[in-house]
């Protein structure tokens, strides 16, 4: 269990949040022009690295807003939290 600082509500406990997977995956502009493999790559393939990962989180039991988080998956250290649409900080 760890404390997450929601960019809207402030510090809350992890159990109030839901993880939403990898962040900054762009939807292809012309899905019809993609091969099945490329589409599957976009749809299913996610990084699962040990180390610094950019993720989406949702404050499900609070303000219900989505936001981004930079987290070190090896020790759960949160490097940065930023709102949707903002540029990812370099960590």
């Amino acid at each position, binding site marked *: 269990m760890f404390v997450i600082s929601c960019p*809207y*509500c402030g*510090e*809350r406990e992890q159990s*109030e949040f839901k993880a939403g997977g990898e962040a900054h995956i762009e939807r292809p502009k012309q899905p019809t022009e993609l091969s099945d493999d490329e589409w599957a790559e976009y749809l299913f393939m996610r990084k699962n690295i040990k180390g610094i990962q950019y993720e989406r989180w949702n404050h499900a*039991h*609070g*303000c*219900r*807003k989505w936001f981004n988080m930079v987290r070190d998956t090896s020790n759960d250290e949160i490097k940065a939290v930023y709102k949707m649409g903002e540029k990812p900080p370099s960590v």
Partner: protein
Amino acid sequence: MLNFQTAINDQKNFSEIKLNEISPIRKLILRGKSREFLSAVGKTINILLPTEPNTSSSNGEITIIWLSPDEWIIFSNSIDNQDFNQIEEKLVQNICKTKLGAVIDVTDQFVMINLTGNKIFDLFQKGSPFNFNEFRNKKGATTQTLLAKIDVIIQNKDQNDINVFVRRSFSRHLYSWMSDSASRL
């Protein structure tokens, strides 16, 4: 006027804490983002929407709780407030019809439970992950959090006087959990 039925219909008096449902209380959810929305609501109900997170504002008639950057809950301060119909009607005219935002009547969706006594936070401590240290001394502070794994909105109305809003389908279970916990404080 609708014929409201109470969800809990019970009152508990323990030595250090009292629980009871306040009903019927009219409640509205307001949603909107733009600056025009904020000013239109302010003009319509003569009270500004709180924009600071985890706060509430109130006048004699109504109280507004901040829920998220684009969501607020408004409820009447008194039971069976007939003037609330006018407030709702005006909001629908000035907010919905002008497409600035949304107004949803959640009177039946949320149940308001009032807790009084000096051991309220000991009760919350048993089932909430929220840190109430600053909250308990700040009048008007609000939070949305979990209590016994149930989504609740908690408002610090006054010293040792707290309102809890819970979805109706969870209300009896939460009330029974609170009664049980409070009996052993």
